[in-house]
């Protein structure tokens, strides 16, 4: 495997690695954005409708919780296959980077909803009560209290969500989604090139480390409770 240190190896596979790293990043970023667009409001709704929330609603809370649990119980690989027709309906294809994004979003959104819920619940109930005592509306409490006050925790949750989505993209690679996971399977496993397996694994580890470090730093940096 020492060949990964040779110029010949990089001349041969460099472009391929770069291209697939890019694909991975595109899948991760786009899926994360859409998954948050769905998961964040759902997480907020979960917290709002809790028994002691600002808009208690037992039924919405239960039904939503149930749907989220179902979404989270399905293994990604099964969900991906199960919703292929839906995927085609949305993006016009079942495969490739585009085809992977739909199941990634569907799978990550419930996960993110729970992450957001956990973060928001860390906000001191007394602070919410104070905002209510000042005449804040439901929207104002969400927008000006819940979200800003839980920002450091949301950012940390963001890192966990992104890393989870990154792991899913590798699984998506198994059905031809492209990206580093795809590369590992096609070159590392099918074509028995151990160096390719090694490099893709290293690249994924490096990506995870970078994402975690950046988000941890950011979370600390923006948290005014620590100063």
């Amino acid at each position, binding site marked *: 495997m020492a060949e990964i240190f040779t110029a010949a190896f990089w001349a041969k596979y460099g472009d391929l690695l770069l291209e697939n790293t890019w694909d991975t990043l595109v899948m991760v970023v786009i899926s994360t954005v859409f998954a948050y667009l769905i998961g964040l409001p759902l997480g907020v709704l979960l917290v709002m409708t809790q028994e002691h929330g600002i808009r208690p609603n037992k039924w919405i809370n239960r039904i939503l919780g149930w749907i989220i649990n179902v979404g989270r119980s399905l293994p990604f690989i099964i969900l991906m296959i199960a919703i292929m027709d839906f995927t085609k309906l949305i993006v016009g294809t079942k495969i490739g980077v585009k085809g992977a994004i739909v199941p990634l979003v569907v799978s990550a959104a419930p996960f993110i909803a729970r992450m957001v819920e956990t973060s928001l619940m860390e906000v*001191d109930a*007394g*602070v919410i*009560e*104070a*905002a*209510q*005592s*000042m*005449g*804040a*509306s439901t929207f*104002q409490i969400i927008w*000006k*209290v819940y979200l*800003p*006050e839980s*920002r*450091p925790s949301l950012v940390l949750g963001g890192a966990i969500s992104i890393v989870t989505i990154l792991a899913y993209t590798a699984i998506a690679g198994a059905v031809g989604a492209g990206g580093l996971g795809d590369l590992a399977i096609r070159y590392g496993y099918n074509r028995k090139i151990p160096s390719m397996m090694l490099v893709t694994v290293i690249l994924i580890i490096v990506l995870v480390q970078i994402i975690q470090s950046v988000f941890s730093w950011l979370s600390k940096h*923006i*948290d*005014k*409770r*620590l*100063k």
Partner: protein
Amino acid sequence: MSESIIQIRHLTKTFGDGDGAVHALEDINLDIRQGEIFGIIGLSGAGKSTLVRCINLLERPTSGSVVVDGREMTGLSEKELRLARRDVTMIFQSFNLLMQRTCLKNVCFPMELCGVPAAQAKKRAQELLEIVGLGDKANAYPSQLSGGQKQRVAIARALATDPKVLLCDEATSALDPTTTASILALLKDLNQKLGVTVVVITHQMSVIEEICSRVAILDGGVVAEQGAVEEIFSNPKTDAARRLVYPGGVSAAQYPASTRAVRVAFNGGTAYQPLIASLAIDCGVKVNILGADTRNIDGKAFGTMLLGLPEDPNEAAKALSYIRSQPNVTAEEVEYHG
């Protein structure tokens, strides 16, 4: 000045229903006057925090009426209620500041909620921080402040909408005695300067005696007693009041049944008289101090002492009449059931 700004009538609050129902408040009737500092005191679980939340409707009363500044609070729509809350603001035991905002931004917060332009809100917030003595902390975050400073920021924030009533829910209970005194002094000062009516919820009699003019004693969800602080202090009529006024307990039951005793109340004489000494000198009667809880309010003596009288009935009668002849002192012979 003596007009009621808060009128509470037949207020009840029940949590839960059926067998598990908890009657937190029962038939509460209170009148809080414009511009006064009114105290609501009670032990933990007496319902005082629930009561104060029924004033701004953070808790909706199960029945009864709450009129604040002429408005029936229980009849307001959600939107009207949000507007009304700008006039009835609140501070808390745990301060409840927004931890991710600077002090200035915390004070801006209620103004932001009602759409005051940012520049104007900032200017007003800075003024309010000056008023509470934290003009130099505008850009500090709450985590950088001491408990007393946090409460000052919370007070500034509560004043941002020019409220008519300031509700203080155990506002000093998390603070040390020195800081408590300074926060109470600030509240008293704001009450006098701004004319804001202050409602103080506490379990500490010392807080009531420090700043309140009138007090209601809450016990087991009912108002046991209410009136002028001096009155209740010098002559508590109910058990609940006695327990709060003399937490150390000048309780007759603690002493031997054979002892005759007299409860002496100091009702605000200019100083403590050396009563025991003069009893011995003037009448030649020796008495035992069985218990005492006396305080100094505005330079006047308040409180009670429980004195054990001599066994000899003549001497006891002599001592009793001597005590009764003293100014600003009332004496009452206490029945023992020990």
